[in-house]
């Protein structure tokens, strides 16, 4: 292999890492805020999947990517808020509810997908024309870095920007402090007369917006159609990422990049035709997740009240 070819492969692999990182980063950042607010929400996978489903069929039927995007985001919010009703208001077991949301999403989207496809000729599964990348003038002309970092989708820039925004929100604003306090000591907020449930609803609404956006990005930017089960464990990886990132924004970003790199590597290796079973490559992120969890021992920032419903006594 020539140096030039090697460089091209590496550049496209790192560019793919950044591209793939976007939906994972969006959903992880949303889940980070949710968990910081004390909600152990395992239904992100389902929320993303439902959003992807709705985004796809809305975009196809309205012939507008933006309608699809809005519908997908709204779906994420609705699914997350149903968790809020169950976990915050009704105080149902958070583990079981999150699981139920995932199962409902996978069952419902599979069924509705099959029923919806009847409207189209068999073999003519409709596709969307995905969002184009938006090169940043000037920066995208930079050698190597330009192609990797500055010729990406708008969502990608937004996702990375959100890391900073959420960091500033959690650590530099009063409301962010209150969200963090929810996970640590909700009683302290309650005794000060601040509503616990209103803040947890807000955190879940934000998480839903992010998960909905992530699901929409999958169908409207990274591919051109919905496939049942297409989230493929990204929501679960988000949960791994938050534990591995010790519930802090910047380490969460680092963990996202690790998993995105594994996936980009997998795609690249398949493309180059490496003599490894492709299933082993596909399984890499999941094997990686277990290994990462074996290595990560720091749980210092895990919210003390994560998953514990708040009862006023």
């Amino acid at each position: 292999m020539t140096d030039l070819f090697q460089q091209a492969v590496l550049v496209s692999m790192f560019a793919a890492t950044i591209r793939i990182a976007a939906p994972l980063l969006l959903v992880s950042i949303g889940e980070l805020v949710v968990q910081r607010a004390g909600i152990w929400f395992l239904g992100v996978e389902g929320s993303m999947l439902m959003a992807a489903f709705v985004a796809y069929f809305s975009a196809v039927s309205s012939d507008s990517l933006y309608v699809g995007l809005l519908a997908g985001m709204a779906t994420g919010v609705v699914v997350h808020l149903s968790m809020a009703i169950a976990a915050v208001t009704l105080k149902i077991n958070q583990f079981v509810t999150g699981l139920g949301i995932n199962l409902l999403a996978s069952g419902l989207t599979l069924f509705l997908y099959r029923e919806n496809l009847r409207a189209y000729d068999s073999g003519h599964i409709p596709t969307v024309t995905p969002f184009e990348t938006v090169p940043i003038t000037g920066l995208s002309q930079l050698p190597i870095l330009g192609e990797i970092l500055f010729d990406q989708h708008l969502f990608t820039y937004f996702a990375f920007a959100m890391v900073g925004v959420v960091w500033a929100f959690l650590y530099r604003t009063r409301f962010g402090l209150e969200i963090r306090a929810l996970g640590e000591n909700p009683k302290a907020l309650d005794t000060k007369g601040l509503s616990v449930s209103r803040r947890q609803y807000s955190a879940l609404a934000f998480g839903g917006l992010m998960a909905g956006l992530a699901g929409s990005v999958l169908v409207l930017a990274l591919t051109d159609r919905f496939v049942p089960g297409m989230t493929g464990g990204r929501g679960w990886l988000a949960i791994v990422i938050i534990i591995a990132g010790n519930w802090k924004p910047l380490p969460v970003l680092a963990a996202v990049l690790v998993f995105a790199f594994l996936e980009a590597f997998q795609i690249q290796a398949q493309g180059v035709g490496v003599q490894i079973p492709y299933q082993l490559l596909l399984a890499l992120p999941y094997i990686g997740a277990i290994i990462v969890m074996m290595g990560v021992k720091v749980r210092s920032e895990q919210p003390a009240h994560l998953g514990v419903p708040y009862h006023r006594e």
Partner: protein
Amino acid sequence: MSQYKLSKRVEIGTAGVLLQAAVAITMAFLASGILLAILGFDPWEALDALRIGAMGDWESVQGSMVHAAPLAFTGLAASFAFRARIWSIGQEGQFFAGAMMAYFFTTIVQLPAILMVPLVILAGMLGGSLIGGLCGVLKSRFDVNIIVSTVMLNYIIVYLLSYLLTSRIWMAPGEYYVQSARVPKSSHLPDMFANTDLHIGVGLAILTVLAMHFVVNRTTFGFGLRAFGDNQVAARFKGINPKRMTVIVMLISGALAGLGGMVQTFGVDFRVSQTFLTGYGSAGLIIAVIAGLRPLSVGLVALLFGGLANGGLFMQVMADVSSAIISAMQAIILMFFLITSVLFQYRIKRVTSDD
């Protein structure tokens, strides 16, 4: 003067749980009917086809029992782990692993049926408990969250099966579909009675339900298990080693799910493939929760879900409704069950103003 007041129940009795399940299931059927109507189906026709397919005659009842058997195993697997407050969601992967390990043994040994059937049963348990035990060890030795390790292994095991098939290690030469070759006749689970479809896997499921009921409620180990689930710190003072308990529970839970995969493969499908094995683990989770983690109730709920799965196939033929609606309906039942569980926590009490 008297007024009504809501008060919280300490524990919901068995009658209460049954009533609650009945209410939740009725509501779920209503919701599914509405969904079907929105999609332009005649809900009465569809749900009636579902009923006939599930229990229209003795033939279909048998079919429902055969569908229920693997579900009873995954339901028991989930309820056993949840009883110890070990949040394993690995039943899906362990179900695959049981079927795959048993299949693996049929490719390396050939024995007469009298030995082959016990061998595949044991191999099914082995496959499931290897995966379950691995997650248990990862938890107790490396503090890897059980939810995370079990979910990740669910994905990994499916890729492993895909590899074994597409690399043609397990695929018959010239086979078009991605599925294994048929298992030898000597390994098929025989029928229990003449002129029925009830293979011994169904009997094994019933026996296992009874055995788990006994183990959980009547043995010292079961007592330790429940104590561990209720309060880990207190259980430690009673001499229960939490790390060992985690590994043992995961081994047993995995073996149960693995048995389910074996029963489905050697009683019904006679081949392994991803499509044949998908969905039993997640259905088992729902069954466990609705059954209140009680083994006997798991058997009953598994029968209901087996009926849904069996009737769903008939509904697909008769009413042209995709049988994929069944997994949606299972989750809808779970959601209504969770909502009604809140309502049933309270009871309406008449209080006189004097007290």
